[in-house]
């Protein structure tokens, strides 16, 4: 892979929500390939490319914390918006948060840092003007200068992610000693399959010396 990138990302808090525990959110132990792809997408993405996460390095010990917040229960229905559009009036179109309140706890990660190793493929949408080199250059330039389409986040937007490009040839930062043993992280979300009606696909995440090898998207190990 001549066109891989390495990006260090870190943040004070993170929440990579387990799909089976999403009402009172519980985070996975580590960042998912899907969330890592989202971070890359936030820096540079075009329909012509698709990012693939190859490897995730976990740099800091895995620690959790709980936080409970008042959240709203309901979502906005398109039918009521259409009605308001027809009436040309926003009067009835509000959500009273104190009548539709849910208190939800979230079990989140504290003080996280990762290195994401990834590459991208050109998609069928790539035109004649799209070359691998061009997109790689754009990504590297943006990541080096701290530019981004939007500030990337650690799973949810209230936990911003800082990022820094690891230049070619530079070493991966030191990992915390507690991460040395091999750890089975269990079935983990790989990504959402947007071609097949947004169905989730999972893989068995194994961490050895803080490194998680992410199997390729279309490989045997990734199961729907």
């Amino acid at each position, binding site marked *: 892979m001549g066109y891989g990138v390495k990006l260090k990302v870190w943040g004070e808090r993170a929440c990579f929500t387990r799909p089976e525990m999403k009402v009172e959110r519980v985070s996975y132990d580590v960042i998912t390939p899907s969330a890592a792809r989202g971070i890359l997408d936030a820096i540079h993405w075009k329909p012509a490319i698709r990012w693939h996460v190859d490897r995730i390095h976990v740099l800091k010990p895995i620690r959790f914390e709980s936080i409970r917040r008042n959240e709203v229960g309901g979502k906005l229905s*398109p039918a009521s918006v259409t009605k308001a559009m027809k009436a040309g009036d926003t009067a009835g179109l509000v959500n*009273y948060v104190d009548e539709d309140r849910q208190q939800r706890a979230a079990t989140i990660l504290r003080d996280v840092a990762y290195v994401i190793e990834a590459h991208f493929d050109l998609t069928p949408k790539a035109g004649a003007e799209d070359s691998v080199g061009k997109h790689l250059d754009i990504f590297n330039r943006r990541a080096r200068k701290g530019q981004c389409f939007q500030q990337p986040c650690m799973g949810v937007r*209230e936990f911003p992610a800082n990022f820094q490009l690891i230049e070619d040839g530079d070493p991966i930062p030191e990992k915390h000693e507690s991460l040395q043993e091999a750890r089975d992280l269990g079935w983990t979300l790989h990504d959402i399959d947007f071609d097949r009606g947004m169905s989730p696909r999972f893989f068995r995440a194994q961490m050895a010396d803080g490194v998680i090898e992410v199997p390729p998207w279309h490989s045997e190990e990734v199961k729907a």
Partner: protein
Amino acid sequence: MTAITHRYEFVYLFDITNGNPNGDPDAGNLPRLDPETNRGLVTDVCLKRKIRNFVSLDKPADAGYAIYMQEKAVLNNQHRKAYDAQSLKPEDKKLPKEEEKARAITQWMCNNFFDVRTFGAVMTTGVNAGQVRGPVQMAFATSIDPVVPLEISITRMAVTTEKEAEAQSGDNRTMGRKHIIPYGLYRAHGFVSAKLAERTGFSDADLELFWRALINMFEHDRSAARGEMAARKLIVFEHESAMGNAPAHVLFDAVRITPAQADADSAPRRFADYRVEIDRAAIPSGVAVRELI
């Protein structure tokens, strides 16, 4: 509305004297604490609530500034908002395709609601464009120093029910509890993405209103629980380019908050006990620093 063309980050400092800035529903409404450092926390949604409340007070009747996520208390002075039906026409095409229709709905919401345009909203259209990601993103605010919440017991010279009165044989007194922080200076970080603003139509005027909301929102959020809260500093970093000219963390690191007296042995109790410095030498070129307070 033309969208903003610069990326922004901001550092927002506010303080509290003898009050509870944000209660923790998990801990009996004690002020939120980071259990590892004992620093106080204020959630992003807490601050966004106050921004929404300020905007609905400031623009009660202006088209385009309705607030979707309303609180009852503010609703009292909400008026029916006149809506300019003209602007609806170009979007309301005949028999639009499902996706176009979804987009029109989203666009309409963005045009009419300040909070949707700023923070985004989730709409269950199922097809596409069901979610709006707003350009403004805020993180949790953390206090500079560890805070020590105090529990203050208070008495009430009345009871609620007859039964209680009988039990007390006419004494009619109840005890209550208030949780306060004697003093805390909190620091919040925020991000404004010009690229997401393009999609929701978040304009320069909206941004000005947003800054004004941050500066003034505590003035309209007085209550028995809050004590005295005040916005102390709003430092805005404006990038020359829409994508940004520097990493956000470099800019945030340039704002340093230190004790005003290095040898101060007493706990900080007022804003003057802190010194806020901006290391202008550390600001990369292409980024303008503005101190709005």
